[in-house]
């Protein structure tokens, strides 16, 4: 990566916070942590443009944990709100009605429900128009704020409140997770990246990199969700780390369409080690193990890494057999 980065080790994480502690989100929320780290890199002059989701409830009138600007729009159109704010600032700056010191970085922040589903149309419009903005999607792979219903980001095999695992439907959700990274890349966004709170330096550098790129920039941050996924809130970071180590959550970026994996798990940890940690996948193991489903998940991870390894010139050691005698990681 560029030699000009401010971020070499986790100790380079800026100490200044623009998101105060004591907000209204759940303990262990990966989403709010991603917002907090993101903000550290961008600095104070930000306009957050929000769509309905968990972050919406952090702004509880007349209080705000945010030391920057915030605008809640609606579920479907946060990118259009970003367009309005960016255009207004640009025209006021151009007319000399606003000093350059008042300029703001415009950042859309939504969950996966808005980013993958209801807001995709307004997102596509903003990308087509080459709007200069950041889109931070905290991805907890379901509609978390309404109690965990399936979204098009929900992975295969996850049970949700609207795709519960039952005797007749033993797998829970049977559709594959939408590849939002590729959707943005196909629309020629100049920068697209995935993030994990467990890989702080990678996270910081990617946000830093985006500050030098004009146009639409997407960041999909894995957002471990203790209440929705069903795990102890103290495990959030460990769980996100496991998602990266198993290869389920690839850390990558695409600059002008060219993909590079920024963290390569040289030896993939078996996916079952990740799946077993969470209530949303428990039906794959109890009362009887659904080996075929677990192997299908493993196989899709394996083929992903074989594919990108061949393309980018690295080797990833895939797990041998998906029936390890040592289920604990």
């Amino acid at each position, binding site marked *: 990566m560029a030699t000009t980065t401010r971020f070499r080790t986790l100790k380079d994480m800026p100490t200044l916070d623009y998101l105060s502690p004591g907000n209204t989100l759940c303990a262990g929320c990966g989403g709010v942590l991603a917002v907090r780290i993101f903000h550290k890199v961008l600095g104070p002059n930000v306009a957050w443009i929000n769509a309905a989701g968990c972050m919406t409830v952090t702004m509880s009138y007349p209080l705000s944990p945010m030391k920057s600007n915030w*605008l809640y729009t*609606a579920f479907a159109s946060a990118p259009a709100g970003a367009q*309005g704010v960016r255009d207004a600032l640009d025209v006021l700056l151009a007319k000399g009605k606003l000093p350059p010191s008042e300029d703001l970085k415009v950042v859309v922040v939504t969950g996966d429900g808005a980013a993958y589903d209801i807001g995709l149309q307004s997102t596509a419009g903003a990308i087509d128009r080459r709007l200069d903005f950041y889109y931070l999607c905290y991805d907890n792979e379901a509609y978390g704020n309404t109690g965990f219903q399936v979204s098009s980001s929900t992975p295969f095999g996850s049970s949700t409140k609207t795709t519960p695992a039952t005797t007749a439907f033993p797998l829970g959700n049977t559709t594959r997770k939408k590849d939002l990274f590729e959707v943005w890349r196909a629309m020629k966004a100049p920068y697209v990246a995935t993030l994990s709170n467990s890989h702080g330096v990678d996270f910081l550098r990617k946000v830093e990199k985006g500050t030098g790129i004009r146009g639409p920039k997407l960041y999909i941050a894995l957002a471990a969700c203790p209440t929705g996924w069903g795990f102890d809130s103290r495990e959030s970071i460990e769980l996100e780390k496991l998602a990266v180590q198993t290869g389920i959550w690839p850390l990558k970026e695409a600059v002008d369409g060219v993909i590079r994996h920024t963290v390569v798990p040289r030896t993939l940890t078996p996916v079952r080690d990740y799946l077993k940690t969470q209530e949303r996948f428990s039906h794959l193991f109890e009362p009887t193990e659904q080996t075929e489903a677990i192997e299908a998940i493993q196989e899709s991870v394996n083929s992903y890494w074989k594919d990108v390894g061949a393309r980018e010139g690295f080797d990833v050691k895939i797990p041998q057999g998906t029936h390890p005698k040592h289920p604990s990681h």
Partner: protein
Amino acid sequence: MKGKLLTGNVAAAAAARLARVDYIPAYPITPQTEIIETIADWVREGTMDARFTQLESEHSMMTAAGAASLAGARVFTATSSQGMLYAIEMLYNVSGWRAPMLLVNVSRGVEAPIVLEPDHNDVLAARDSGFLQFHSETCQEVADLVLFAYRVAEDKRVMLPAIVNLDGFYLSFTREPVVLPDQQAVDHFLPPYEPVSPLRASKPVSRGSSVFEGFLYSYFRYNTHAASLRAKEVFNEAAREFEGLFGRTYGPVEGYMLDDAEYVLVMSNSFTALGRQAVRRMRERGVKAGLLKILMVRPFPSEEIAALLRGRKVVAVFDQNLAPGSGGIFYPEIAGALYHVRGRPNAILPVVGALGGKQITAKEMGAVFEEMMAIDRKGKTPSPMFLMRADEMTRVKKMLSVAEGVR
């Protein structure tokens, strides 16, 4: 009247330019499209100093409009029919944000079935959104009300978004003489927009925050209501100044031949011209007919309506809209305005007509007055009139039988 021959659409665009609008988020829909095409031309030619962005839907267009207004830009946009319906979620948001932008609606009936010509179900779908609403009868009113709308919406006592309505086809594509005020006078009437708590680096703000308790929500909602009510006095102040500057003016309502009128027709928008014609015709026959035009729909000018309708024998409310299962939308509002008034009219006749731009003949208008007189004479309870002529029904049947024959 001297003036340039302009369509209602071009009059709206010209007024937006005179208002020194900063930002136009847009999305095409018939019959509004000429407005945004005209503005796009001017911006690209460099004769209008503004930023024009075409969005990918009316929902996004309204989101961008409200957000830009909160960031400090004077914002103009336009829509019609389905576009209004598609945007409606954001209308409620934008008024809740107290973002004083202007939306011009060019009325067109709503689907299904698809139709191109006007009635007011589109703009009245926004009736309860918190937007101020001013409805125009002529192309001159379109231009003037755009200026009024900014002046009132941006007043610190109001700070609410506004809609100016004009009828598709009858105004949008009809050239009428329009006197465009000169820029200097407009600048005097309409000072630059001063946003309240805009999004700024030096003084960050949170807008659209959540409230989780009913009492806080009620606080916001009552504030919006109070601001809307204050808009009437602000409008009247503006009207006095407008008259001094331009020699013509407007009120929340306008009476026509009302002095001794016993039978009064209540109307809005461009079909009011047909109402005026009907009144003149009735007067020629010696009937004491009159008309009340409603220009300001939100806030609803109940006091002015009550003052002008008290003492009349019978009033007919002409609704160019339909709330299926209820009737016309204005009717209950007018009835509500009159209920506690001493000397209220003996009867209020609900009339629904001109849906989808259906032509209204002099005979139909005459029938409305005849019905008002019959109600008065016989002391009977009015039953709603739905205007549709026998010859029109014959045409429907003929078309159906032709289609049947083809099959």
